[in-house]
Structures are given as C-alpha cells and as structure tokens.
C-alpha cells in the first residue's frame, strides 16, 4: 500500500474527526449538547481501550496466555466501587471547581502546592511512556501497512524528527490544541473532543469485531476450528491457561492495577469526572462499560492463534491485527483496522495530553508564575491569554517527551509491559484518593511521603531495569544489586524473588505508600487547612451547597478581587460571574468596598477552575488580608461547633416531635375527660330525678297524714305503707348507685372462691319459690351436670342471677309464664341463659338496656318497676369476672339473657 494513500486516508479520517468535533462544539453552543447522553458518556469512557488493547492484547495473549484478560476483568471487578467513588469525587469536583487529579489531591490535603506539583510530575512521568506506546503502535501499524521497515515519509531516515510517529504526533498536537484548549476555564467541558472520542470508540470496536468475525468465520470455520488447529502446535499450549507458578499472583495484581488505573488515570479522570455532564450517566457505565470490554476481547484469542498459524513469526505479535488482513489480501479491511487502531491511539493521546496539560499549567507553572511579583505585575493584563499559550506549549512539550521516550525505549519492548509500568505509577494515587474521600485523618505529610516512596520504588524496580536493558546503566545493578547488595536487586527487592516484575513493583510500592500514608497521618497532627479540607471532602454531602465560608475569616477589597478575575477570565466573563453571584446570594456588593468571606471564597473557586487551586490560593493571598493565621484549634472549634449545632438541631427536632405527640395524647385525655364529665352530669341529673319521684310521693303522703287527723285507720295504714315502700325504693336506689360507683371506680373488692355455678343458680331460684308458686309459673331448669368450677365472688354472681330471674319473673307472659334456665360448657366458657316468654325487646334497644337508668328513659315499654340500674350493675359485675352479658330477643315472643363466664379467668380479676 502506498504511503501517500495511507497518509491521505489518515488525514481524511482526521478531517472527519475535526468536523465531528466542530459539530459537537457548535451543538453545545446551541445548548443541545451531544455528550449529554449516557451512551456517549460510556463510549467516551472506553478510551480505557487504547492501542495497547487494540494491538497489544494479541501480543500479550501469545506471550503469557490468558492473563491479558485481567486488564479488562479488573475494571469490571472495580465497577461497583467505581460507582460510589466517582459519584463522590464528581460531587467534590463540581462544588470545589477541581479540574484534575493533581488539583484534587493538593486541594484535599490543605491546598498543598507541593503536592499538586508532585502529583502532576508523577502523572507526567507515569503517563508519558503510555503515550509513547500509542505513538509507537500507530507508526508501526503504518509501517506494516506500507511494507516499509523504517517508516520515513518525508525526507531522510537520519533525521530523528521526520518519521511517522513524529507526523502523527504533530497532527494530534494540532487537534489537542484546537479542541483541548478552547476555554481558559479547565472546568468547562470539551464537548467537541468528547464527541470525536465517542465516535472513535465506536470505530475501534467495530473494526476489531469485523476483523474477528472475518478471521473466525470466513477464513476458518468458527472458533473451534482455529482452536483445534492451534492445539496441534505444542508451543501454543500455554496460551490456553494461566501459569500455575506465579500466574495467579500476576493475574491478581493485573486485576487490582487495572481497577485502580481505570479510576485514577488522568485521562479516565478527565472523561469520567470533568467531562461528565450528568452524574446519572455513571449508572449506565456500571454495566455497559464492562460489556464493551468483553466485546472487544472476544476475538483476541482467535486472532492471535490465526496470526500464529498463518504468519509464523514473520511479524512481531503486536502487529498481527494489521498483518493478518494484509496477508489474507483484504486491503480494505486492513485500512479499516488501521483506522480502528489509529482511533484507539489518537483518542488516548488527545485526552491524556489535555489532562496532563491542565495539571502542568495549573499545578506546576501557574503557581510559580503568580508567586513571582515582578512577573505578575508586568503581565497582569494578559495572564489569561498567557495561560492559554502555556497550555499549548505544554501540549507540544508533552507530546515531544512521549516521542522521545518512544525513540529511546519502546522500540524493542512489547506494548503491554510498557503500559503496565504506567499502571503501577498511577496506582500510587489510590491511597491518597480513596483515603482522602473516606478518611478524615489522612494528612499531607502522609500523602506526600507515601507518593514519594511509592514512586521511588516504582522507579527503582521498573525503570532502572529498562535503563539497564537499553545500555544506559551498567548490567551489574540488575544482576548483583545496587553497590553489589543482593537485597537491592531491582527485580528482587529485599530478596523477594518469586514475583513477576509488575506484581513485585506493585507489592513493594503500594506497601510502602500505604504504610507511609497511614503511619504519618496518625503520627503527625493535621494543620488547620488540612483539617478544614478533610472535613469538606469526607462529608461533601453536607458542604456541597455551601461555600465553606465559616472557615475563611478574611477581608479584601472588592476592586482588587475584580481586578484579578479580569486578568484571568476577561472582562465579559467576570461581569457575568459577578452578576450570577449577586443573583444567587441577593447581595448588592456594589454598595460596599469590602468583600465578605463568602465573596472571597466564590472568587477563589472561580479562579481555581481556571488556574488551579494552589495558584488561585496564591493569587487570593496577595489581595486578601487575613487578620491572623487561622489556627488548627479554631478550625477544630468551628467544626465541633457546627457538629454540635447539628446534634442540637436533631435533639430539638426529636423533642418537638415528642411534644407534638404529648399534645396529641393530652388532647385525647382531655376529650375523654370531657366525655366523662358529660356522662357524670347526666348520671347525677338522672339519679336526682329518680330520687325526686319517691321523695315527692313520701312528702305528699306525709303532708296528707299531718294535715288530716281524721283519716280512717285503714287509709292511714295504706298511706304509711306507701311511704315505707317509697323509702325502701329510695334506699335501694341509693345502694345501687353506690354499688355501681364502686364497681366503676374499682373500689369494690371481690371475694374470690371456687364456685359451682349451677348451685348459685339454684340458690337464686330458691328466693323466688314463693312468687313462682303463687303465680304458677313454669320453670324449665336445664342445667348441665359436672360443670367445672369457676373463680368468682359468690354474692355478686348471686346478685346477677337474682336480678336476671327477677326481670324474667317481672316481664314474663302473665297468663302462661314460662321461664327457661339453661347452663352449658362451650369451649372454656360457661354459658347460662335465662329466657322468658314475655313481650321481648326491640332490636335497636339490645345495646341500650345495659346502660344506666335505661328503663327510666324508656318508660312506655316497661313500667318503672326497678331503678334501671340492675342490668348495668350485672354487666359491670360480669365484666369484673372477665365475663359478659348479652341479650337475644324477638318482639312479642321471648327475651333471652345470655351470661358468659370464663372457667379460668386470668389470675387477677378486674374489679
């Protein structure tokens, strides 16, 4: 294939990407963001799959078997964790205007400028080999396609700068400058860049799948065919399994490393957090991202085997993906695959470079620039512009460094092993990041020391051997150890020789990193700034809406602040932001010259989004006068106060709830009391009414007797008899009222004995012997023998039955009076019924007859023969025995009073 053809294809594809990016930008300007879509978000996340995946997996599969999959299973394992961690980190970054992982760590650990610098350096050192790897992959792909050994395009092979890798680097630098540095504010999303990347992710997946399907189903007859043929070659046996010696450990390390890399690689952080439009999109990624990884890996093994079967080592294994379609004569497919690889590499380079550039400019260069007073003064008007140029220079610088690294080291090393070196470096951020958002005690000393130690070990165990193998350092270091000390051998530090290089480096670096982080965090006390930020980061849900005002007791002139903002944001953007501020807080800040703490914090955050947190802090410090350095005790005091306030608030809420409940209960009680009062009044008026009737007649007869001396003796006797009867009636009424009161108030004492109910019924009946005989009543006594005894007060129960029998006697049919008494055992109750054949009771009165003085209220049904308290007293007595009484009646037919008493009433009887 001609180089010019390939070059124009590449340029054409790039132009398409440029167009897409422009389209994305313009849509965003119209307010119809393309990347505000969960699927676009997930596809852009798949920049995780770089040229390493695209070309390197095949090489790795042939070299060390199935463990290439660990790099993709790792993020799947980490996905549940990723969801929480990223949700929290996204929230923190939004509220604090954080734009990179370096900003994040430096901001969390007390706005430490040194930490920002350190993390940026580590990122650059760690990621540059990774970018170099992409350049190498694309340029070697180019050379495979164009059948050239060395890939000179323009002039001569002697000139280092004129090969494919270099040209690609330049083109990508232009793309990154155009779409990665559009705004000064690093918090702004790069809509165009992300649109292009999502598209590239789609292309790389499709190209790889098409190649896989072609090889498996058109060249061979399916998976099993390739595998069956490959099994014939004994040298391929190791491809199908893990090496039982150390393979599991390596597998585990790869899983852990890739999990951490997926979270904390600068480009992943950029896409997952900074470019995220809506945190709800994270949810889709939880399953869709692993699915993408699975799909892009399905055909790795068949392609590797087919390459091994067909190409037989004519090419390095890392280029099989391209060499295979060429060998099979499918040039068009080869071009498609090349574009897929180009997409994989290009998107990674663009995003990584953008992320690193922001770190470099905001955490390395800006803090330096703003802290040099003479510089600040002379450039003050165009600092914002200068910042943009700095970023552009950074992009070119980073890409050149990557290119250099490629030229110096990568040429002879497989892609994956270089990538893994980057992963181990990035993993050093994990303790500081995870500890930073969940552990309040983590402090800057621990973090700094941890990262330094981790990176030191990383450099010693992974980079030194690389230098040695390239001949920059003497071989002795690797073989004998530094200074001939065997326990300092880079591949077997402290004598640990059983692990593969990556697991070995990961183990020691993370061990020292975590130990230093935790140990120093415990050992050295946090300073005020640190404690303040720790509280905000760990409990971001509490502070996301606030500006952390209380922690910054400072004063500044509004004019000064406006001036700084103008420098970096430009006049237009500054006015907009100030307007926004006064709208949100309703502050007429123009009226005063002094800015309050709230406004200072607002400005600092605004500035942080553009020049990074540490530079922003330096800028603010130059105009803000802090009365005195805030001390740790003050911060702790404020924190404690705010926590106490929260606790107090909670307690207050609880108390007011309890109060409400108590009020409700009181109201209920009050209602009950009023009800009782009402009933009491009714009762008293009824009782007095009842008493008045006999007293009136007694008085009337007594007056007659007193006034008329000449009354006949017979008549006199009759009158006196009436007076006696009425007096009895009054007495009885008073007794009954008193008894009812005692029963109701619970002052009546029951004398509990074991009783035979039948006997009580018989005794009660005996008292009516005389009447029965006189009126020739028919008594049907149907008592069940051997009823179990019950516990109760004999006299009271006797009273109940006497009352019932007297009612029956009173109201039974005057001509043929029949009274039936029945007792039986039903389950654990004794039921006694007393039935008469009287005129019956209306159904609606069945409940009412047990009310006090019911009879008195309803005199047209029954004559006032009693007090009207009898049945009410019966019911009370029975209820105090845990029993009850009911009535069954048919008007004009019968009345049946049904008494129920439990055999074994519970131990304490209610009185």
């Amino acid at each position, binding site marked *: 294939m001609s180089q010019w053809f390939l070059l124009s294809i590449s340029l054409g594809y790039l132009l398409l990407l440029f167009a897409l990016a422009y389209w994305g930008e313009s849509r965003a300007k119209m307010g119809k963001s393309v990347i505000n879509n969960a699927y676009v978000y997930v596809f852009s996340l798949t920049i995780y799959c770089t040229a390493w995946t695209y070309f390197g997996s095949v090489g790795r599969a042939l070299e060390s078997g199935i463990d290439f999959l660990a790099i993709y299973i790792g993020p*799947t394992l980490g996905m549940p*964790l990723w969801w929480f961690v990223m949700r929290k980190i996204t929230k923190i970054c939004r509220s604090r205007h954080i734009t990179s992982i370096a900003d994040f760590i430096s901001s969390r650990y007390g706005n430490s400028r040194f930490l920002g610098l350190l993390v940026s350096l580590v990122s650059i050192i760690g990621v540059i080999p990774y970018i170099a790897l992409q350049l190498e992959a694309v340029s070697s792909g180019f050379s495979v396609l164009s059948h050239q050994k060395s890939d000179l395009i323009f002039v001569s092979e002697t000139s280092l700068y004129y090969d494919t890798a270099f040209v690609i680097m330049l083109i990508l630098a232009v793309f990154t400058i155009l779409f990665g540095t559009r705004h000064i504010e690093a918090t702004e999303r790069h809509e165009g860049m992300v649109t292009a990347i999502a598209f590239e992710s789609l292309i790389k997946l499709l190209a790889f799948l098409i190649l896989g399907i072609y090889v498996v189903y058109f060249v061979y007859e399916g998976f099993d065919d390739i595998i069956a043929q490959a099994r014939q070659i004994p040298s391929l046996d190791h491809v199908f399994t893990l090496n039982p010696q150390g393979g599991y450990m390596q597998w585990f390390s790869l899983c852990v490393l890739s999990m951490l890399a997926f979270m904390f690689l600068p480009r992943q952080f950029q896409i997952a957090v900074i470019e995220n439009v809506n945190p709800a999109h994270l949810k889709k990624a939880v399953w869709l991202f692993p699915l993408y990884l699975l799909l892009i890996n399905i055909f790795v093994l068949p392609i590797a085997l087919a390459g091994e079967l067909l190409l037989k080592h004519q090419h390095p294994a890392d280029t099989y993906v391209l060499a295979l379609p060429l060998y099979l004569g499918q040039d068009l497919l080869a071009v498609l695959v090349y574009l897929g690889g180009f997409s994989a590499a290009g998107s990674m380079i663009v995003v990584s470079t953008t992320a690193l550039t922001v770190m470099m400019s905001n955490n390395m260069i800006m803090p330096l620039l703003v802290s040099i007073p003479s510089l600040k003064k002379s450039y003050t008007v165009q600092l914002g512009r200068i910042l943009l140029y700095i970023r552009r220079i950074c992009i070119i610088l980073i890409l050149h460094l990557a290119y250099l690294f490629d030229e110096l080291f990568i040429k002879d090393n497989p892609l994956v092993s270089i990538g893994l070196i980057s992963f181990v470096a990035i993993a050093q951020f994990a303790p500081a990041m995870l500890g930073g958002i969940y552990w309040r005690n983590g402090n800057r000393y621990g973090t700094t020391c941890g990262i330094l130690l981790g990176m030191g070990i990383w450099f010693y165990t992974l980079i030194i051997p690389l230098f040695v193998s390239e001949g920059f350092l003497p071989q002795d270091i690797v073989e004998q150890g530094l200074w001939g000390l065997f326990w300092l051998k880079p591949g077997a530090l402290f004598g640990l020789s059983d692990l593969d290089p990556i697991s070995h480096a990961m183990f020691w670096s993370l061990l020292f990193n975590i130990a230093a982080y935790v140990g120093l965090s415990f050992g050295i006390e946090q300073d005020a700034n640190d404690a303040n930020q720790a509280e905000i980061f760990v409990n971001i849900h509490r502070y996301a809406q606030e500006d952390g005002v209380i922690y910054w007791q400072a004063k500044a002139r509004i004019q000064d602040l406006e001036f700084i903002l103008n420098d970096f944001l430009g006049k237009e953007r500054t006015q907009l932001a100030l307007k926004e501020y006064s709208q949100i807080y309703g502050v007429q800040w123009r009226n005063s010259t002094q800015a309050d703490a709230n406004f200072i914090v607002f400005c600092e955050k605004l500035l942080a989004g553009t020049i990074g947190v540490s530079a922003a802090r330096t800028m603010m410090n130059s105009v803000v006068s802090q009365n005195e350095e805030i001390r740790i005790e003050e911060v702790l005091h404020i924190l404690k106060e705010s926590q106490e306030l929260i606790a107090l608030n909670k307690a207050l809420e609880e108390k007011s709830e309890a109060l409400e409940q108590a009020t409700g209960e009181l109201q209920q009680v009050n209602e009950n009391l009023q009800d009782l009062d009402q009933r009491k009044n009714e009762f008293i008026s009824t009782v007095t009414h009842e008493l008045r009737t006999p007293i009136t007649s007694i008085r009337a007869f007594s007056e007659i007797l007193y006034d008329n001396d000449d009354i006949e003796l017979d008549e006199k006797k009759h009158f006196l008899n009436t007076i006696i009867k009425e007096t009895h009636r009054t007495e009885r009424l008073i007794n009954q009222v008193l008894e009812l009161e005692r029963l109701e108030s619970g002052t009546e004492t029951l004398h509990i004995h074991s009783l035979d109910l039948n006997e009580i019924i018989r005794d009660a009946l005996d008292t009516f012997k005389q009447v029965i005989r006189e009126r020739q009543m028919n008594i049907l006594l149907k008592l069940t023998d051997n009823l179990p005894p019950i516990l109760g007060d004999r006299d009271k129960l006797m009273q109940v039955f006497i009352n019932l029998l007297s009612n029956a006697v009173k109201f039974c049919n005057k001509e043929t009076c029949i009274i039936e008494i029945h007792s039986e055992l039903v389950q654990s109750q004794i039921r006694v019924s007393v039935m008469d054949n009287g005129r019956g009771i209306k159904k609606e009165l069945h409940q009412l007859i047990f009310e006090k003085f019911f009879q008195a209220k309803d005199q047209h049904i029954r004559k006032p023969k009693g007090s009207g308290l009898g049945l009410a007293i019966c019911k009370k007595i029975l209820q105090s025995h845990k029993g009850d009484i009911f009535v069954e009646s048919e008007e004009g037919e019968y009345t049946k009073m049904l008494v129920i008493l439990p055999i074994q009433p519970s131990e304490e009887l209610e009185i």
Partner: protein
Amino acid sequence: MRLMKAKTRFSKEKSAAFLLFIGCWMMLFFNFPILSIFNVSGLVLGYPILYSYLFIVWLGFIGVLFLIVQETKKEQ
C-alpha cells in the same frame, strides 16, 4: 402497575449494598482458588475451558450489574 413497579425499586443505599456484595463475589470468582478449578488444558464443545469459564462468568456478572442498576431509583 407502573406505580407498583416504581415502589419495588431499590433505594440508592440498597443497591449500593447489593453492588458491593456482587463486587465481593466477582473477586471470588475471578481469582485463585476458584480460578484454579478451571485452569486446566482441555476443551468444552471445542472451546478452551478457562477461556469459556471467564467469558461466561464475566457476561453473567454484567447481567447482574445491569439488573441491579436498572432497578435502582433515579437520582434526584
């Protein structure tokens, strides 16, 4: 019916617990010693055993993740 479905969805806390639980199971299934059970050189229906195991379990877990996330209430 729609209302019923909305009611049965997991709260964020509940699905968080579920996801962590699944994460632990994935760690178990994708590492030594369970991995060693399938780390044998042989074929199942023409596919290498370890290869088939990894892909099938992988796909299975993606399905489980999908179900959990799908049943989680929308964020405010």
